[in-house]
C-alpha cells in the first residue's frame, strides 16, 4: 500500500518562473517531439503541444537535483491530466496522458520549493471523451475529515474499554462461559476501530496480535490480546492461565484510550483506511485465517464494515465534492454487504460460523466484498492532494 507524502497545494507556490531559459534538447525536427525537459530552472520551456487524444510524453530531468513533481495541468491551473512524483536526477520517465482540445501547461516543483510553469500551449484536434483529469483536494479538508473521524472513534474506544473491563472481570472470577459470551462484543468494538496495518502502532500487537512469526505459535508468551484469549477460551484453558492474559489485554485497551489523543495518524491514512480495512477483512476474516476457535469471523467482518462506514462518513463531504457517484455507489454497496453479513447473525446474538456456509453463500459474500473493494480503492487516488515531493524541511 502506498503511503502518500504530506502535501503542499499548488496554490502555495513561492514563486512562479515563467518561461525559464533553457536550451532545447528536442529530438527530430518534424514538429511533434514529445520530449519534456525539466530542471531546477526550467519546466518544459519549449514543449510542443500534441494533437488532442492520447500522447506519451517523455519527461527528462537534466539536472543533478530531484524534481519533486511534474504535472500537466489544464487552463484552470488546477485540473491535472498527468503527473510524476519525484523525478530523480538525470532520469526520464514516460507521461501517458489523454488531452481534450484546450490550453495546457506543465508545472514543476523543485527542491527549493519553487513552482515553475511552462509556457501555455494549445492542443487542437477533435473532441476527446475519455480524458480523466482530477482536481487535487485541499489537504486542509482531509485534515478536517480526520478530526471528524477521530471524534467518531472515541465512543467506540470507550465502549471497547467498558466491554473489555467486563470480560476481564469474568475471567478473573473464573466464569469462563460468561467470558466466552463477553469476548465477542469487546472484540467487535476493536474491529470497528478499523485497524489496518500500523494504525495503532504497537497497541495493535498487544490488543489483537496474531501468533505469526512467533517460535511457540499460539503457546508463545508473546502471543497476547484478544486472539490469545480467544484461543484459551475455546481450547479449554484454565481460568488461572487466562487471568493474566485478560488482565494484560484490559491494561492495553486502557492504554490505547489514554494514548489515543496523542497518537499521530497521518491525514492521508484516512482515505487509505476507506479501502484497507476491508482489504484486510477479505484476506483475514473471509478466509477464516484469524479464527482462534470462536468461529466469529463473520461478526468481525460486520464490524469492519461498520468501521469502514465511519471512515466514509468522515469523508462524506470531500468525496461528495470530488466524486458524488463514487460516494453513492460505495455507500450503497457497503450497506448491502452489511445487510448480507447481518443475515448470519442469529436472534440469540450468536453468529453463523464462516466454515458452515455453502459454496454459494461464500461466493456471494466474497463477490460483494471484492466488488466493493474495486470501488473503494479509487478513494485514495480521487482524494489525493496536489503532487509534491513532500515538505522541504
Amino acid at each position, binding site marked *: 500500500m502506498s503511503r502518500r507524502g504530506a502535501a503542499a497545494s499548488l496554490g502555495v507556490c513561492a514563486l512562479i518562473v515563467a518561461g525559464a531559459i533553457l536550451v532545447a534538447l528536442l529530438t527530430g525536427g518534424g514538429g*511533434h517531439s*514529445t520530449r519534456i525537459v525539466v530542471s531546477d530552472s526550467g519546466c518544459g520551456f519549449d514543449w510542443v503541444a*500534441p*494533437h*488532442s*487524444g*492520447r*500522447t*506519451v510524453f517523455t519527461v527528462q530531468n537534466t539536472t543533478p537535483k530531484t524534481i519533486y513533481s511534474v504535472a500537466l495541468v489544464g487552463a484552470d491551473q488546477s485540473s*491535472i*491530466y*498527468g*503527473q510524476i512524483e519525484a523525478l530523480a536526477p538525470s532520469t526520464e520517465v*514516460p507521461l*501517458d*496522458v*489523454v*488531452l481534450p482540445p484546450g490550453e495546457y501547461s506543465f508545472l514543476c516543483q523543485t527542491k527549493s520549493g519553487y513552482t515553475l510553469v511552462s509556457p501555455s500551449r494549445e492542443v487542437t*484536434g*477533435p473532441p*476527446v*471523451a*475519455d*480524458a*480523466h*483529469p*482530477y482536481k487535487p483536494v485541499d489537504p486542509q479538508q482531509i485534515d478536517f475529515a480526520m478530526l471528524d473521524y477521530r471524534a467518531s472513534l472515541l465512543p467506540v474506544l470507550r465502549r471497547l474499554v467498558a466491554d473489555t473491563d467486563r470480560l476481564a472481570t469474568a475471567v478473573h472470577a473464573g466464569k469462563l462461559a460468561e467470558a466466552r459470551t463477553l469476548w465477542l462484543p469487546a472484540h467487535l468494538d476493536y474491529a470497528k476501530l478499523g485497524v489496518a496495518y500500523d494504525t495503532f502502532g504497537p497497541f495493535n500487537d498487544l490488543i489483537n496480535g496474531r501468533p505469526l512469526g512467533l517460535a511457540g505459535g499460539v503457546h508463545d508468551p508473546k502471543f497476547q490480546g484478544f486472539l490469545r484469549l480467544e484461543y484459551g477460551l475455546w481450547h479449554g484453558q484454565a481460568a488461572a492461565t487466562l487471568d493474566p492474559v485478560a488482565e494484560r489485554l484490559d491494561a492495553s485497551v486502557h492504554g490505547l484510550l489514554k494514548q489515543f489523543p496523542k497518537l499521530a495518524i497521518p491525514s492521508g491514512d484516512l482515505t487509505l483506511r476507506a479501502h484497507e480495512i476491508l482489504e484486510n477483512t477479505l484476506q483475514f476474516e473471509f478466509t477464516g485465517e484469524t479464527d482462534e476457535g470462536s468461529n466469529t469471523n463473520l461478526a468481525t467482518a460486520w464490524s469492519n464494515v461498520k468501521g469502514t462506514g465511519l471512515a466514509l462518513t468522515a469523508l462524506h463531504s470531500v468525496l461528495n465534492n470530488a466524486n458524488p457517484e463514487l460516494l453513492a455507489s460505495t455507500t450503497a*454497496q457497503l450497506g448491502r454487504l452489511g445487510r448480507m453479513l447481518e443475515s448470519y447473525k442469529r436472534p440469540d446474538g450468536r453468529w453463523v460460523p464462516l466454515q458452515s456456509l455453502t*459454496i*454459494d453463500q461464500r*461466493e*456471494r459474500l*466474497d*463477490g*460483494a466484498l*471484492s*466488488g*466493493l*473493494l*474495486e470501488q473503494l*480503492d*479509487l478513494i485514495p*487516488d*480521487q482524494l*489525493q492532494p496536489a503532487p509534491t515531493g513532500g515538505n522541504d524541511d
Partner: protein
Amino acid sequence: MTDQNERDDEQRCPVGGLSRRGFLGLGASAGVGALAASSGLGAVAARASALPDGATKTPAIQAQLQSFEGAHQAAILSEPTQATAFASFDVLTESKAELKDLLRTVTQRMRLLYQGGLPTNLGPASPTDDNGVLGPELPSQQVAFVFGMGSSLFDERFGLAKARPARLTQMESFPNDNLDPAQCGGDLSIQICANSSDIALHALRDLTKHTRGAVIPRWRLDGFQSPPRPSGTPRNLLGFKDGIANPGTADPTEMDDLVWVKAGSPEPSWTAGGTYQVARIIRMLVEFWDRVSLDEQETMIGRRRASGAPLDANDEFSIPDYKADPQGAVIPLDAHIRLANPRTPATAENRILRRGYNYDRGLDSNGNLDQGLLFTCYQQDIQRQFVATQTRLIDEPLVDYISPVGGGYFFCPPGLNGKDDYFGSALV
C-alpha cells in the same frame, strides 16, 4: 482420452495479418479503441514501433477474430496452444440488466485483450487499468478465448429457462468418478488459450478484475501442451501421444455433423452455430502408472507408447483394423482406444472433437504429484457423443490409474454478429 478419426494439421498456427479494424468501433470507454480513434495515435504508434518487439513477429493466434465475428467461436476449432487457463464462474448479479452488462463487459475485455496495444489510460487519479504483467503494451493477437454457459445460468434467476439449450444439463457423475463439488459446474466457462502462460494468466486476471462483484471464479485449472516428442502428436502425462485421432476440423460437413448445433427442434433458435463443451479434470495417478510394465500400459491404451501407433500397425496415424482382430488378440476389446472409438458406422455419430491439455498443480496430501489431463471436448449433443463414449469407457482397465475430480458441461454460443455484438446477446 478418447481416440477417434484422422487428425488434420491444416489449422496449425497460420499467421494472421489483421488490421486494427476490430476495435475501432468499440465505445469510448473501451480504451484501446479510443486510443486508435484519437489523434494522439501518431505519437503512440511511433513509440510502439520502436519497441524491441517479440509480439508483432510472433504468429497470431489463429483465426481468433473470426470467433468474434463469424458463425462460430473459431477458437474451438483451433489446435491447442502451448498454454491455457480454464476457469468456471458463478454469476452474482441479480437482474437481467446486470447480466447483460456483465456479458457485454466480458466480450469487450476479450476483444481488447486479443487486439492488444496500449492499455486504457484511466488518468492520474485511479489505479491502472492493466496489471502490467505483459509490460506497458499488450501483444497483439496472442490470446484466444472460448466462452461457455452452464445449465445453472438458465435457472429461475434471470428468466432464461425457456432459452436453455436443449442438451444442456449439469455434468453427471460416472462410475469411478471422484467429483469434488467445488471443482464442478459453474454458470459460465472461459477458456483462455495462448502460447505462453503469462499471456493466459494476464487475461484471466484482467477478466476477473473487470467483472469483480458480478461473477466469482468457482474453479480453475491451468494447462499446457507439450511439444512433439520427438514428432507427431503431443504426449499426455501417461507418456502416450494423446489426441492422435480427431474429426477433421477442416471439413465443414464433418463439423456440421459432429460439432455445431443445428437450427430446429429441439434446440432454441439462438443456439444454432454453437456447440456443447465438456470439461473434465482427470487426475492421473502417475506414480502408480509408472509402476506398471510397458506391456500392460500399451495393452490398456491400445497403442505403442514410443511411436503412438495402434498395436496392429507401425505408424501413429494408421487406422486400427478391428475387423481383422475380432477377439482382441492384438488390441484388446477393452483397450482405451477401442472402447472410445470402435470405428463402426453405428458409433461414427458418437465422435467428439477433443482439445486436451496437460495439467500439473503441486502435490496431493500423500506427496504424490497432482498431474493429469484438462480434458475438453466439443459436440453437437452431449448425450449422443460424450456420454455415449464415456459410457463405453466405464470400467475400462485404465480407470485404476485415473481419477476424474471435476469439470462441467457448458454451451458455447455461436460467434458474434458484428463488432457491437456480445456473447449471450440473443438472451438478454
